[in-house]
């Protein structure tokens, strides 16, 4: 009598096997994605004797006490952080305005604006960097700290704008109308009603801008002149061998980034529920 339920069952075991294989495949790819990160973290604790930190020579904490042994490296990390902060502040302000305009209003400029942002996201960084350098050189602008900030704002602006727009589209405009009906000025309405509602989008956008900036190499190399950032310093050190201090600094940045990302997604989930 149980044969009645069998047709459904004959298919199920096959499904499960396929799913299980697929699950294993997912973990294999993830292992591959995460392997270099494990290597980076591990080799910060490597008791290496020579400058080339390639072979495992025992566990040590000693490099943590020598984090500042390379003053140019420390300076490069500080540059990376301050450049990222400056670029994030500018990008978030300009990107939020674009996101508001595109999410709230229907206007003829929206099409061209979308197209330019799309071009900024999908153009190769190499070409953006090269063309910016051509312009700076012939305009007689000395490349350095400021031009790096300009370039970082350029490539992260569109990402912030689309992130904020996604948030603005989901808003109920009647809340702002209510505020205005109750006598609030445009300015008050924005800061007391609109901004708190789009703040999660603005925060995500700002985090993204910071992450894009602190990680960037290609455009930075073209626009930095004599200024060095953390990725540029590592690139310059590859030939002679990368010291363990780089691994430790990379691990610290990684840890901070992961903590912020998890906090942000937990907060986002709490706001929804």
């Amino acid at each position, binding site marked *: 009598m149980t044969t009645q339920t069998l047709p459904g069952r004959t298919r199920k075991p096959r499904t499960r096997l396929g*799913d299980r294989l*697929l699950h294993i*495949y*997912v973990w294999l*790819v993830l292992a591959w*994605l*995460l392997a*270099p990160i494990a*290597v*980076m973290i591990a080799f910060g604790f490597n008791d290496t004797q020579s400058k080339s930190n*390639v*072979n495992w020579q025992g566990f040590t904490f000693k490099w943590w006490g020598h984090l500042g042994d390379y003053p140019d490296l420390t300076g490069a990390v500080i540059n990376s952080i301050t450049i990222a902060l400056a670029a994030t502040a500018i990008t978030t302000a300009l990107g939020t*305005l*674009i996101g508001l*305009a*595109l999410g709230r*209003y229907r*206007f003829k*400029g929206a099409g061209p*604006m*979308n*197209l*330019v*942002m*799309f*071009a*900024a*996201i*999908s*153009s*190769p*960084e190499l*070409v953006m960097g*090269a*063309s*910016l350098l*051509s*312009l700076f050189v012939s305009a007689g602008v000395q490349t350095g700290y400021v031009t790096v900030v*300009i*370039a970082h704002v*350029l490539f992260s*602006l*569109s990402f912030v*704008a*689309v992130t904020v727009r*996604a948030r603005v589209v989901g808003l109920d405009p009647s809340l702002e109308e209510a505020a205005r009906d109750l006598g609030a000025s445009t300015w008050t309405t924005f800061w007391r009603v609109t901004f708190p509602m789009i703040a999660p989008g603005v925060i995500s956008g700002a985090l993204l801008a910071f992450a894009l900036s602190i*990680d*960037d190499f*290609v455009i930075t*190399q073209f626009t930095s002149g004599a200024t060095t950032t*953390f*990725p540029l310093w*590592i*690139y310059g050190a590859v030939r002679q061998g*990368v010291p363990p201090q780089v691994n430790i600094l*990379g691990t610290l*940045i*990684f840890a901070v*980034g*992961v903590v912020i990302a998890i906090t942000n997604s937990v907060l986002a989930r709490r706001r929804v529920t």
Partner: protein
Amino acid sequence: MRRLTPYLLILPGGLWLLVFLIVPLVYMASVSTMEGDVVNGFAQTFNFAGYLDAFGAYQTQFLRSAVYGLAGTAIAIALAYPMAYWIAFKGGSRKSTYLLLVLLPFFVSFVLRTVSWKFLLADDGILFEPLKSIGVLPEDFRVLQTTVAVVGGLVYNYLPFMVLPIYVALERVDYRVVEAAYDLYASRVGAFTRIVLPLSLPGLFAGVLMTFVPMTADYVNAAILGGPDNTMIGNIIQQQYLVNNDYPVGAALSFTLMAVMLIGIFAYAKALGTQNVLEAAAR
């Protein structure tokens, strides 16, 4: 006034993009036909022959970049699609955890990730040295400075850009549609090729755009993981700009690269719209 508001809002950001994205690109087109050197300055001579010289001298690297970009994109699809499929349909409540794991490499600087691969793949490094000492691999076995290392590095660095848009597209597929196909006696293969795959194509195309372009224009992987036989067009452009200060040749090469890609990018935007890429970017 109210009609002007959106224009005022996009004005500062729009100007930034105009001055630092559009103007430099147009200007680069002009530099590419100039002649001269960095000491005496460059003058516009409409030297279009420069393009032929530049392309003729570096056609090997152009071709190699295209091959690496295509191979890397194909491998990325093969790795990313099953992954995105499993996370979207079988990930259940752990979806966001899996996505975080996929994005985890982004918390390590791009250059540092690539340098870590150099550690891992070093001839006498932690992976190959033990295998060589027990005789599993021959002494002269190497991966660094080969095509495998460079294409592998490209796939590694850009894989999340393929996973994300495919995942976004698959996540939106209503699974009841797939069940309906089974109820109507579709086979598993049939349900996939006729229902799931077509619905995920926009995401797949967005992923191709977001990986093929940066892979083809990359020079970091070839510089760190590759050897003299793996030089890509990006390495040449970088060298012309930052080492030789030969801006016209560098500009002609970047402009050729950009033009080929722009045609592809705008054909894409025309055919499929910008929505998928902009949406994937917003995640």
